[in-house]
């Protein structure tokens, strides 16, 4: 027993704070490039402040899958995910942080935002300008499956918001529009990155509904092949962040984790976000990178859909509107 205790003590000494601080940030797919840069900036700042070296470990994957990993025991200190619903699940199912986590940081704990835009083939051969064009016959639309992809749910809600405004809230007409839209979808990949491959690499589809930052990455990756179209209306996606309090407490990284997330709101971090095509909250950073972010009429999920939980229930759960539009085909 004594040796066992000694061993655990030794191993904890070896892995923890004697030599360097360590933090595990569990995030979703398209934030890879942003957090690489942000982690370096924060580590530098942390060293100046405390004199300690810091290693931030990153984990990326589909947002829902990442949340499940944390619930099942992946010991994340902080989570930076795509949907507040996913962090809600960690709070509710895993009991790892308080239910009011979203009030802990400014702007609904979302230091940066994004939205859904269109990516089309270079020169826009099909002349796609707005959501209304997507339901014309002969147009192929690429978007992932909302049952398995968080990004796909934002696409769906953005389309819904457009139709809702256009038809003045006439539910039957809105559903008809959504049904016509998904009739033009030949492939529903399981995740956003899968859809990117289908559109950009396989050359399938005329228009790809994409995260704004992912759309810019496609332009970088496949130069001269695609272009971005800004629709008249879209949805404000607020990817939230939170300290996984129980894990942080166990690791003794509470202060560090809090400082890490707070730094996301600093001028430096906001600038990095803008550079990586996330819309900064900070007005100065937003102004600096305004070339990347054309003005769009953005609706919020709270105002338009009564919050994430409600939207999930009405649209994406079994028997929701998404299931409905595929019925009786």
């Amino acid at each position, binding site marked *: 027993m004594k040796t066992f205790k000694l061993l655990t003590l030794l191993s904890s000494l070896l892995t923890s704070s004697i030599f360097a601080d360590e933090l595990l940030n569990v995030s979703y797919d398209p934030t890879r490039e942003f957090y690489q840069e942000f982690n370096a900036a924060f580590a530098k700042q942390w060293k100046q402040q405390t004199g300690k070296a810091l290693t931030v470990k990153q984990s990326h994957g*589909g947002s*829902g*899958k990442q*949340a*499940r990993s944390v619930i099942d025991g992946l010991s994340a200190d902080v989570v930076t995910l795509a949907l507040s619903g996913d962090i809600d*699940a960690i709070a509710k*199912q895993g009991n790892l942080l308080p239910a009011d986590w979203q009030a802990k940081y400014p702007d609904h704990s979302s230091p940066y935002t994004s939205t859904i835009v269109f990516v089309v083939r270079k020169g826009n051969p099909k002349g796609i300008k707005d959501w209304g064009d997507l339901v014309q016959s002969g147009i192929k639309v690429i978007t992932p*499956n909302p*049952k*398995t*992809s968080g990004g796909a749910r934002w696409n769906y809600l953005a389309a819904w918001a457009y139709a809702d405004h256009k038809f003045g809230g006439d539910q039957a007409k809105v559903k008809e529009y959504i049904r016509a839209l998904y009739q033009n*979808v*030949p*492939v*529903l*990949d*399981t995740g956003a990155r*899968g859809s990117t*491959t289908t559109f950009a*690499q*396989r*050359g*399938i589809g005329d228009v790809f509904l994409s995260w704004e930052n992912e759309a810019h990455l496609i332009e970088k990756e496949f130069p001269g092949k695609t272009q971005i179209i800004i629709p008249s209306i879209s949805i404000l996606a607020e990817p939230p962040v939170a300290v996984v309090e129980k894990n942080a407490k166990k690791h003794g990284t509470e202060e560090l984790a809090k400082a890490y997330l707070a730094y996301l709101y600093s001028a430096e971090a906001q600038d990095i976000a803008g550079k990586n095509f996330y819309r900064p909250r900070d007005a100065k950073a937003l102004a600096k990178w305004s070339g990347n972010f054309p003005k769009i009429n953005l609706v919020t999920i709270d105002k338009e859909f009564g919050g994430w939980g409600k939207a*999930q229930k009405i649209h*994406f*759960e*079994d*028997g929701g509107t*998404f*299931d409905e539009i*595929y*019925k009786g*085909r």
Partner: protein
Amino acid sequence: MSKRRVIPGFGLSMGFTITYLSLIILIPLAALFLKAARLSGAEWWAILTTPQVIAAAKLTFGASAAAATVSTVFGLLVTWVLVRYQFPGRKFLDAMVDLPFALPTAVAGITLTAIYAPNGWIGEYLAKWGIEAAYSPLGVFIALTFIGFPFVVRTLQPVMEDFGSEYEEAAATLGAGRWTVFWRVIFPMFIPALITGFTLAFARAIGEYGSVIFISGNLPLKTEILPLLVVGQLEQFKYEAAAVIAAAMLMASFALLFLINLLQRRLNWQNH
């Protein structure tokens, strides 16, 4: 001690077997059923009778059976060629059969999609004929054929290698033609191994996820497979519903495999 066995070590080996099977098979499966058992019978019924689940079940079991059948027919042919003839490159071909075992299924899925997509090498020509290979039930079938193929060859090969030419010679001296020799003498000997190969390929195909989701297109009611619906439930944090679909799949597969085994016993018994 009433009876001593001839071979020693029964207690130890049996104990080990049971512990091992419990750890790697029984306990995980029991956990699955426990999770699913949290829902009532009515809830099970509601989940399993949604149009999505029924459509996916038809596709999963149908495409798996079709793929396993094709693998069995062509597996027989390929094994015959590999065992019966000597030709340069035989060892190489033989090794190639195992590739679907070794390749990560996601890689297989992406590769197959690249080839069969409308702008792929083969898909391009199929598209001219109006055949949609990728993003259709046919795509699911193609992926399942790919991953099931080695099972048939590898179960049949040792049987065929042990099968000497004396039966054929005896049949020929008794006046049987080549066709009769094959159908009446050789083929019946291979049936048990073929059934085993079919069963393995079929069982593997039912649970396959990684390669299928890339080529199927995942359209609700059209090309969604059951494992995808399980993942879809998990994405909504509905662990119980996911467990129900998984448990139902497991029971259906078990029933089918059990039936096939029974059939095989009957055939074996008839042969002797």
